């Protein structure tokens, strides 16, 4: 089973404060910690577990600048065999469509049975790149996958719907699946893994290497162009409780008591 995993190097923002740049087109990156996109982390783990069970190879691919190399190193250290980083100043400003076009060119001539990627990215949250790539490659896909079982040339999958409901289906290989968080338990990087990763090769390809035109990537090759970023208006303004932790705790206790809940 040869598997390609598409990963993205993104800032961790769930626990971080975000500052929007003065031009309103991006966020202040200094002070943010970048790592593999959380959903892709589960996709990589799934790929490595499948390889361990069925044999074959895992190739990690990303589109991103030099710093994104650390995410690929992590993939190699966790069990990927090969890594490809697609990079070019012209890729700047690409949306999920442009990214999918870049990845399509890079993987279409590789041998693969399965492509895995995260169900969405924690930064732009399009949840679209995977199935767009499947569309470009002309292979079937299924999204938000919580379980994978192999059965000859098909995969029986379970995908997450709303309200705790799951859908079981079957798809023919080769296929692309987007992985939902919680499907497995991503492993930690071992010292041995890091050592091995040092010896593995990381391929770097640019715009001309993959044979795309300038206008097919970046902002001009995208469907969506960001005009302005701003802090979301709040639905209702919370009353902020201030003071020492003890004072705040006393206020909270009073509020709860006033509702007759103590």
């Amino acid at each position, binding site marked *: 089973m040869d598997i390609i995993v598409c990963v993205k190097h993104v*800032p961790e923002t769930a626990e971080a404060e975000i500052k929007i740049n003065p031009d309103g087109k991006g966020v202040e990156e200094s002070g943010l910690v970048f790592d593999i996109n959380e959903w892709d982390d589960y996709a990589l783990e799934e790929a490595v577990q499948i390889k361990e069970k069925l044999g074959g190879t895992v190739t990690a691919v990303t589109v991103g600048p030099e710093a994104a190399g650390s995410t690929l190193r992590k993939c190699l250290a966790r069990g990927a065999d090969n890594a490809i980083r697609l990079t070019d100043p012209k890729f700047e400003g690409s949306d999920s469509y442009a990214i999918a076009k870049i990845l399509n060119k890079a993987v279409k001539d590789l041998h693969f049975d399965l492509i895995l990627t995260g169900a969405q990215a924690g930064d732009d949250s399009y949840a679209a790149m995977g199935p767009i790539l499947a569309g470009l490659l002309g292979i079937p896909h299924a999204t938000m996958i919580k379980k994978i079982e192999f059965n000859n040339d098909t995969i029986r999958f379970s995908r997450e719907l*709303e309200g705790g409901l799951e859908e079981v289906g079957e798809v023919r290989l080769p296929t692309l699946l987007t992985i939902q968080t919680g499907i497995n338990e991503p492993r930690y990087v071992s010292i041995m893994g890091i050592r091995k990763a040092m010896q593995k090769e990381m391929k770097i390809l640019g715009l001309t290497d993959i044979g795309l035109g300038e206008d097919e990537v970046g902002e001009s090759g995208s469907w969506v162009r960001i005009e302005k970023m701003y802090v979301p208006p709040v639905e209702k303004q919370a009353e902020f409780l201030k003071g020492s932790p003890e004072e705040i705790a006393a206020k909270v*206790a009073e509020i709860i008591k006033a509702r007759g809940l103590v």
Partner: protein
Amino acid sequence: MSKIFVLAEHRRGELREITFEMLTKGKELAEKAGAELTAVLLGNNVREYAKTLAEYAKKVLLVQDAKLENFNSEAYQKALSNLIQEHNPMLILMGHTSFGVDLAPSLAVSMNMPLATDCIELQYEGGVLTVTRQMYGGKVNVNATLRKAEGYIVTVRQATFPAERGTPANGEIVEVPSPLVQEEIRKRFIEYVLPPPGGVDITAADTLIGIGRGIKDSEEIPSIEELAKILGGTLACSRPIVDKGWLPDNRQVGSSGKTVKPKVYIALGISGAFQHILGMKNSELIIAVNKDANAPIFGVADYGIVEDLFKIVPPLKSKLSELKG
């Protein structure tokens, strides 16, 4: 007359709420653009749904086929492509749901129609489509324009637009023959699996303590459980806690978990991704503790505390114990 398509979403015997939310928004857009609001219904034995949709839309395009009975993005894409080729809609709305997410991107590629996903607002002016969507887990809003085209596809976030009935549209129902051929489909639907019954029912609790990523370590959970016990409440959580296996999935609040409406919801270390907010924003009283003053959870909370939750929980436990006497 140009058309705006709204793809009806149905599952297990009912039209889903997002359908009516999109029809309401679609009507507003159609009136402004002088377009015809058209509901697209793909299914099997669903004429009853078509009648309901005709109360909202000027036209209902109905395609019936056994292969469309349950959602299958591949079969849906084929049927929908056929309708797009015939009607050239200027805009197609579908839900940013497990269905829309599976269908919209590959449809957009094959029809060469620009796509924007998870939109919370959209405007169509002078042939240019402008959308509002969110990034970084709801911490940033983005206004974006789509590349100019004859037709666009937009997936719409659930529970964002109200579902209004308005004056009945008395729409016309047009049944179109199914273009599906058996051997073409590479993906098939097998079955729906319901969450296992039993266990703790967080929807029945008056007091819920919801924990999120800010809890950092599973070893902290017993001390939060103590707080829940003092309050006679129940422990609930956001998605990352279930993903890590720290709490079972019957404790998860949000679009992929439970929708709750307790008398009080205390959110500890939950930043408030919209999937979580959808599940708890109608709680009677919301108290949120988070280190980031700009966390979206404060946008739905009645009371906010910008502080490390571990500094608040211990004194809160003692104050509440005192009050109980």
